[in-house]
Structures are given as C-alpha cells and as structure tokens.
C-alpha cells in the first residue's frame, strides 16, 4: 500500500475519536478534576480544596456504598450466570424447539431497562402484587410483604429484577461457547463410561474456561456501574439501602448539586473500575492470540 494510506486510515477514525473525546474523555477527566474543588451545579466558579472532598467521602458513606455496590454486583453476576448456564446447557441438547425458546428468552434482555423496572415494581407491589399472592399461596409467607420498602428485602428485589434482565445475554454467550465443543469429545467420553457430571467437569468446563471468565468479568463491570433499574425501582432507598456508586454519584450531582463530592466519589469508583478494565483488556488480548 502506498504512503498516503496511513493518513487516510487515520482520517477515517477521526469522526469517531472526536465524539469519544467530547463525550467520554473530556467529561471523564474533568469530572475527576472536580473531585479536588468545591463546585456546585447551582452557581459558577469553584474553589480548590485539595483532598477535602475525598477524605469526606472516605470517612462518610464510602464503605457502605462499596458494600452495597459489591452485593448488587456479585448477586447480579452470579445469579444470571447460573441461570444462563443452566439454560444454555439445556438448550444445547437436542430438545425440540430449542431455537424458538432461545429467541423467546431473549425478551427480558431486549426490553428497555425502565420496562424491567415497571414490571418488577408491579410484581413486588406490596398491596396487589402477584409475588405476595404466589408466596402466600405456597405458604412461604404469612402476610403480604412490602418488598421494596424494607431495607432487608429491597436489595434482594433489585438483584432479582436485574438478574431477569441479564441472564439472556449470559445464555446466548455460553450457548455459543458450548456449540464450539466438538461432539466427538463427548462421544468418546461416553464410550469410556464417563457420566454426565464427569463429562461436564472434564470436557465442558475446561473448554469454556475462557468464555466463562469473559462473560463473568464483563457482566461484573457492567453491573458495577448499573443505574437504570435501581434508580427507577427504589431510587436508592429505602434509607439508602440500595444505593450503589452509580445512583449515589448521580444523586450527589443532580439532587444535591454538589459536583465536587460527586467527582470525589466518582474518582474512587473509577479507581476500582480501572482495575476491572485492565483485567478485561488483558483477558481479551489473551483471547485474540
């Protein structure tokens, strides 16, 4: 290829990078910078305060938010993984209608996040909710519960709703992985007398190790910053028990109008997220080889 091709190729990437700089890089850097200033959304100007915001966050809500964010993230990564893997294994057998089922089960993942929230808000409804009726019918609870209004149950409810949205993606990815396992391997193992569990442990899992790691890591990263479902379902409540970094940063900036504190919280959040992103890039580069 002749000399000008490199310049032409870079030119092609220009519109995309202009957008990335304007919408991602600049706002990110400047949000992080505001961590060191006292700055409000309500009036212009700002004062340098050094590490004051960061120490305030660390001695305030940080540990509680970290705990809640981790609970949410771990729950919404493992539950969808288990359900998605179970379904992928089931759909990978020769059961009738596997294709149609796979399509149907993608619905929860396709619909807008707010729809997921509306639906589960209605299912969890304290007075007329179908979940209360089902559990009462089964004798699991004595009286209708206000799932979203109690700190003990609100986080579980949010995790369930997010799990419902996430598992189809896990299912599709793992199913794609399962389909790359050569059937001869299973046949040979079966001839050797290996049972279902044995075949799963010694063929399926090792073969899928790469993709299992990848989907868990990606899901973890996404849920670590998830906003929509929590915000609509509980708004971070009751008593802040379902706040995560995402909803807390948002509320600090747009309800408390405190950009400095939002930036400080965001800075700490980004540090944790950065570790995950480095892991992810490391992981996907290894996968390319």
């Amino acid at each position, binding site marked *: 290829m002749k000399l000008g091709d490199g310049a032409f*190729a*870079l030119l092609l*990437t220009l519109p*995309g990078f202009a*957008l*990335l700089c304007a*919408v*991602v890089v600049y*706002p*990110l850097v400047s949000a992080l910078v*505001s961590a060191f200033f006292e700055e409000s959304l309500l009036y212009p100007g700002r004062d340098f305060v050094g590490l004051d915001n960061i120490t305030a966050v660390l001695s305030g809500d940080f540990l509680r938010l970290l705990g809640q964010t981790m609970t949410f993230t771990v729950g919404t990564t493992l539950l969808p993984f288990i359900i998605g893997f*179970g*379904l992928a*294994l*089931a*759909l990978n*057998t020769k*059961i009738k209608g596997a294709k149609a089922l796979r399509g149907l089960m*993608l*619905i*929860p993942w*396709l*619909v*807008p*996040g*707010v*729809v997921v929230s*509306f*639906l*589960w808000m*209605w299912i969890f*409804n304290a*007075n*007329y909710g*179908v979940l209360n*009726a089902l559990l009462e*019918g089964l004798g699991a609870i004595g009286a209708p519960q206000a799932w979203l209004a109690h700190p003990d149950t609100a986080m579980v409810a949010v995790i369930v709703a997010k799990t*419902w949205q996430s598992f189809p993606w896990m299912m*599709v990815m793992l199913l*794609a*992985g399962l389909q790359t396992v050569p059937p001869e391997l299973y046949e040979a193992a079966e001839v050797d007398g290996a049972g279902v569990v044995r075949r799963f442990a010694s063929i399926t899992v090792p073969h899928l190790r790469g993709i299992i790691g990848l*989907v868990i890591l*990606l899901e973890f990263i996404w849920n670590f*910053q998830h906003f*929509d479902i929590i915000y609509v379902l509980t708004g971070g409540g009751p008593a802040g028990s379902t706040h995560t*970094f*995402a909803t807390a940063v*948002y509320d600090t900036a*747009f309800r408390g109008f405190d*950009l400095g504190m*939002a930036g400080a919280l*965001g800075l700490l*959040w980004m540090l944790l*997220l950065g570790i995950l*992103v480095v892991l*992810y*890039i490391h992981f*996907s580069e290894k*996968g*390319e080889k």
Partner: protein
Amino acid sequence: MAAWLAVIVFGGFAMLPVYWLFATSLTPRAEVFSYPPKLFPSSPTLDAYRALIDNPALFAYLRNSIIVSVITAVLSVIVSAFMGYSFSKFRYRGRRSLMYLVLSSQMFPQALLLVTLYSVFSAYNLLNTYTALVLSFTTFTLPLCVWMLKGFFDTIPNDLIEAAKVDGATRLRTFFVVVLPLAAPGLVAAGLFAFVRGWNDFIFALTLAGPDKQTLPPGLVNTYIGEASTAWPELMAASLVVSLPVVIGFIALQRFLVGGLTAGAVKG
C-alpha cells in the same frame, strides 16, 4: 430430563413476568386493585391501550424517541463504518491501541460522565435538544458497532479492494461502491443496535432533555411513577408498546445479530 427441568424452572422465571405484563395490560383498571390478583383477567379489555392513544403527551415522547433513535442509528452507522474500515483494512502504527481505546470507552460509568457532560452541553446551549442526546448515544454505540463492522469488513477479500484500485477507483469510491454494499447485513445490524441504544436509554434522556424533548423511558417514569395509585394496566400496556419495536427488530435480524454479538465479545 435434567434439560427439561432447567427449562421449566429457569424458563418460568424468564417468561412468567412477560406473561404477567401482558395479562395486566388487558385487565380492567378496577380489577387490578384487588387482592389476591387474578392470574387470568376475567373480562379482558383493551381499555388500557385506548387510554394510551388518548394521551397526547405520550405521543410527544414517542415522536422524540423515534427522531432521536433514527438519527442515532444513521449517524452511528456512518461513523462506525469509517472507523471499522480503517481498523480492518489498513495497517498502521498504534492501530491496536486505538482499537482497545474504543473498546474500553464503554467501561466508563455514564452516571459519572453526566456530571460534567451536563455542564458541557449547557455551555453550548445544547441542553434540552435532540443534538445532545444523539451525540451522546452515537458515542456509546461506537465500541460495539465499530467492532461488529470490523468483523464484517474482515470477511471481504482484499483482492476486491485491490481490483477496484487497479480500475482507478479512489479510496473513498472503493469504500462506498465496493465495500459497503458487501457489508450491508452488518450495516443493518449495527444500525439496529444503535437504534435500540437510543430507544432504551434512560439516564441521558432523563438528565439532558427537558420535558418537551424527553424520550419514552423517562417520559413514562414521569407520567406513571410516583403517583398515589399507579395506573398499572396502562403502564403495562405502555411497556409492551415500547418494547415491541425492539423485539420485532431483533427477531427480524436475529440471524445477523446473535453472530455479531458473540463474535464481538468472544474475540474481544
């Protein structure tokens, strides 16, 4: 046997809520406020859907959603095609780093970006405009769309591009006349993804757009949530209507999408 058990238990978790959404949307309003709820509406009615049609505010949100999502889809396909082509068919220093830069941009939390983005758009008088939403959405579609289109371009033989060059076509002409038509399925798939990104978004439309430019997701929250007694049949009907375009589009293009989806993520 175990396969069926998994399908029934997990499938029930997956599909029963979908049924409940549908059933509630057909339930008369008075019947919804009774406990225990009836699993089958005793006298199904389309009242909830009629109420939606009679609400002009919802049509304004719908119009905003369509405008924003369609422009996002078109813009995203153009920008991603340029970028994906550059990554796929040219070799230059820093290419791989640039590719990973694009990919990692989806990892930054949007709630944090908004903290400053709000002020940036405000400074350029772009708050409460379609522009702010379209620019934001387009940017967030880039990682997926660029990688997906790169995958499609990778399958186009270099010989075709060389042949066009020998015939005297300019590089841009080659791109538009030879390469793009061959990648048409990819363009459609990327366009749908971008459309859905705009259509499903909540946080940006909630924050950057005022009431008259807001799309359906924040519009529905504003309309139905926080009232003393939510009109559940209406809200479920609205949820179903909002979800339909996405579900139908996906079913129509499933062949391309599932492939592109897994390829993008499995290969990194």
